[in-house]
């Protein structure tokens, strides 16, 4: 159950010709999730910044 299913890095990338499908899906999926995290973090920082500025000015 815990044996590597592949023998070499090349095989991992190839996956008997299915590698292109598998890896493109994972790349797109992970990128989408990562980008959402980055956007969320940025928005949060901006919102906090705005409130701090408002606090400082009042």
């Amino acid at each position: 159950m815990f044996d590597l299913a592949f023998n070499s890095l090349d095989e991992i990338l190839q996956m008997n010709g299915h590698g292109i499908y598998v890896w493109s899906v994972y790349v797109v999926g992970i990128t989408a999730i990562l980008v959402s995290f980055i956007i969320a973090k940025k928005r949060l920082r901006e919102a906090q910044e705005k409130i701090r500025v408002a606090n400082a000015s009042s």
Partner: protein
Amino acid sequence: MITAFIHKFSSPKSFVVLTAKLYPYFICIGLCLISLGWIWGLLFAPEDAVQGNSYRIIFLHVPSVIYAELIYFFMAVCALMHLVWRVKLAAYLIKSAAPIGAMITFIGLFSGSIWGIPTWGTWWQWDARITSTLILFIMYLGILTLHGSFSNLEKADRLMSILVVIGVINIPIIKKSVDWWSTLHQPASISVSSGSSIDPSMLYPLLISVIGLGFVLISLGILSSRSYIYTREKNKKWVSEYV
């Protein structure tokens, strides 16, 4: 009494305080589980006898379509809370969950189509699951557009909730009707996951990635809902004190 109870536990303040505390744990658990699940699934799980290695898309595809529907269901519950008990937090949560739902639905659709190329020889089929997922995606977009088109945000909240509730009734109807309609043309030829017949060496990593993605998405939800709550409640005293 129910109303009082709900209002006590649904104040945006206590939500933000609680989730801010939980966030580091959730993101750690999520990242660990999802890496475990995916590494296991991609590298260690055995090759599928029928589909070959392309089945490994399952470890991303199945979790994302599960959450595509779960997030909508969550939004529908929030929408009811907003309409019935006027819980403000519920509307904030819908608004911040919708983009995440749209994103994960997109991932589900995309991974499904790519998976379809080596397996069925086509990237699109008008079967019940795929059609209803596409409709789900359109509905996420509709909800976001609807909310974005009003300057009075409270109006936007309420109209959005109405749309979400109507939509949740619609999804199963679409599923059933496509099923019914397409069974007339051809027998249901596509079934994505065959449930318990799946081998444990593939099932465990799948379960782990489902749980892992759940934690990751909750963490994402915590982040985006917090910034949305800050922008909506920026004039409240607790916000300026808490930040």
